[in-house]
């Protein structure tokens, strides 16, 4: 049963990265767009993302619930040693979620709009940045449970070049996903062209920050290259990722939106495979080769069993409904009264 739970955990992380990521990315694109076009982006975004916005963020809740029910030790140690980045990410989530709703539902349009927009855009950047930091810190071997000082235990556990560069990389990925998504949702060719340019520049940024990640990994003694290229699965998935990236560049102008989206999704999936496969089932790597593993540190058998059942029953309800929601609003324009 624990494998069922792990599969759900991994899938929920992936879906949060893809769907939540595209959502964050839309804010990032707004942040890096000329003032003229900021509003257009924001209108396109609330039109297309509005109906699925709440659902996109549920994946994070699922991840957390799986962690604390199924892998309580892992949950407890992440939230102890990565308290500060988690806190900043939470503040980002609060700021972003509320600003998104407020700017849409404020009955009076005045100077407050500018404040909501600013908050929304900056928190769209900060939240995935810290998500990246948290993910990187979990595996970078910098958490030291024996650390004595405050800084060693609670700051340097997450503040290093490797985590910062992964944070930046996550931001670029989100921006890229959003651009790819928005290309398919535009109403004028001019707007479409704009997002194509955005997608390309986000892509270049992602490649550059990806290179940065490798440099930082070397600097911080994280054996990233070994994880990615030291095993056939890693190599194969990187190859697929690069292949789909090239196809996206070719198809981006005229290809069908669904194909481009699938390719982008495939690319991110493969990246996640490459980064998680090698150290699976170890999920937290502490300093001095200590670790927490999904298999060795899972919670009580009975708890895992009921969690797996709850997840399976849940997905019977959720997946068709979610699919129908996304499908419906692809075909119909959302309409509020």
């Amino acid at each position, binding site marked *: 049963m624990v494998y069922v739970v792990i599969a759900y955990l991994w899938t929920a992380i992936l879906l949060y990265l893809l769907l939540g990521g595209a959502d964050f990315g839309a804010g990032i694109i707004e942040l890096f767009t000329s003032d003229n076009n900021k509003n257009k982006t924001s209108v396109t975004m609330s039109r297309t993302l509005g109906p699925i916005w*709440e659902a996109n963020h*549920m994946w994070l809740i699922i991840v957390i619930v799986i962690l*604390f029910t199924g892998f309580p030790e892992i949950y407890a140690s992440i939230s*102890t040693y990565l308290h500060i980045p988690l806190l900043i990410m939470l503040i980002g*989530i609060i700021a972003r979620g*509320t600003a998104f709703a407020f700017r849409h539902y404020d009955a*009076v349009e005045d100077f407050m709009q500018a404040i909501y927009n600013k908050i929304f855009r900056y928190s769209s950047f900060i939240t995935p940045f810290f998500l990246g930091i948290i993910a990187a810190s979990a595996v970078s071997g910098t958490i030291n449970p024996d650390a004595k000082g405050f800084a060693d235990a609670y700051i340097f556990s997450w503040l290093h070049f490797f985590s910062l560069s992964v944070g930046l990389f996550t931001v670029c990925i989100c921006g890229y996903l959003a651009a790819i998504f928005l290309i398919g949702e535009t109403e004028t060719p001019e707007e479409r062209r704009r997002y194509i340019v955005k997608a390309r520049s986000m892509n270049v940024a992602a490649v550059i920050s990806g290179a940065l990640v490798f440099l930082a990994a070397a600097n911080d003694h994280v054996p990233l290259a070994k994880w990615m290229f030291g095993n056939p699965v890693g190599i194969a998935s990187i190859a697929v990722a690069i292949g789909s990236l090239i196809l996206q560049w070719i198809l981006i102008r005229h290809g069908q939106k669904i194909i481009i989206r699938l390719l982008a999704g495939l690319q991110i999936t493969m990246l996640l495979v490459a980064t998680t496969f090698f150290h699976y089932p170890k999920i937290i790597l502490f300093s001095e080769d200590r670790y927490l593993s999904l298999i060795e540190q899972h919670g009580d058998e009975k708890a*895992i069993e009921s969690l797996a059942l709850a997840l399976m029953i849940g997905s019977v*309800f959720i997946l068709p409904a979610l699919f129908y929601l996304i499908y419906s609003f692809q075909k119909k324009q959302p309409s509020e*009264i």
Partner: protein
Amino acid sequence: MRTGCETSYEFSAYLNRFFESRASSFSIDFIDCNQNLIKTVQFHICKLSFGNSIYPSIHSLPSTFATLKNIYLHLEMNDFIAARSQMALSLAFHIIFSCIGMVMPFFMAVSHFYYLKTGKPVFRNITRAWSKGVAIFFATGAVSGTVLSFELGLLWPVFMKNAGPIFGLPFSLEGTAFFIEAIALGFYLYGWGKFNKWFHWFTGVVVGISGLISGILVVAANAWMNSPAGFDFAGGKYFNIDPVKAMFNDAWFSQALHMCLAAFAATGFAVAGVHALMVVKRKNIEFHTKAFRIAALFACVAAILQPLSGDHSAKDVANRQPAKLAAMEAVFETGTHVPLLIGGIPDEKTGQVKYGFELPGMLSFMISGNSNSEVKGLDQFPVTDRPPVLITHLAFQIMVGLGMLMVLVSILYFFVLWKNRNFEKNLWLLKLFAFATPLGFMAVEAGWTVTEVGRQPWILHGILRTKDAVTPMPGIQYTFYLFTLIYISLAMVVILLLYRQIKMVPVKYDVNI
């Protein structure tokens, strides 16, 4: 905190308290008989180990202190208090939004139903205005709920490490319920005129039902903290875990029932109050009257049922957490023929109650139906196992007092409705409702204070102490200040937005399109 100590015995009792509360440092002012400060000495308590057990030790206590007349201690806000405050603040904030998220969909479904049946535009307009308010509350409720699921680990990692697998089941089912809710909300808010109208209406009902289910589930998780079940405990380890038994613990039903009623009463009174105020002000009268009637009906029925369910809860508490009941009712001494105390300020040091009004034998009677029966007092429990009496008692009095007030208003409302259907002319009744706007939510906050503070010093009743569950990370007071600031600003913005929504009713909602 400043406390005067007269004797060395009292002083050492205080020191024990501070260790209990895991103060990180304290200072003592040595004062002469004219209250002049002679010297301030700072003490630091060093923590010997992190994790499950924390033993404070004091570096250098002067042996002469006992001879001094007055000793004052002041305590800085320490990490433990800060963590509790932060948890309480976040929950107190979230509960308002979750109540509204649970109940408003039903109000909307009713007015939407009237619209679909009668075609009267005013019902569509009410639904429309409400749905905007609900969307604001939903977003705020969703983010504050997300924060909570992290905070459980950020603040209480030791608790979650042990409790997570046992009470995780209601949370994982709740995840499903939230997901369905979020999906249905997407259909409902953005699907006007795009789907079959009854399908669209039905998605609104689904929002309400799944919200209610998620509320019940999360309260079942809380009930488990009051009434641990579904595992065996020995030597600090948790065995034979049975998540289903844990979910259906002894307290889940009484708490969940009481909470659901509370959500309807609180949200109903708040919504009815706002619309009543607008009718009093003679604005968009038809619109506000119709909206008022829908909300008031739900609110008054729930408010009248609430004391019945509360009585059931109290009996339940008497069984499973007698110390909590004793604190709620400020019963210091065990006895038979125990009176029911109304009001009053209990003093924990002396065990006396000032200014109270007593109904002889009533408490014994209410709990077991016999005024001769015994009620356990706080004297049955060691000092370290007693909850704070003053807060628990006052909060309980506030909840019950407000509850009774709401019952009164509700009965009046039904009476006027029965006598004279055109009550909208009776401005005094509407003014009464306008006055009652915040009462329900005040009762909710007070009720949760009873439940949570009354459970102290346990985070998991009888098993794990709150102080042993807190995070080892120091500096929590700063995150508490930060969260206070964030929640205050959020609350202000939400109030502003709501004010604007109501102000715009004549322009945006009560118009025929």
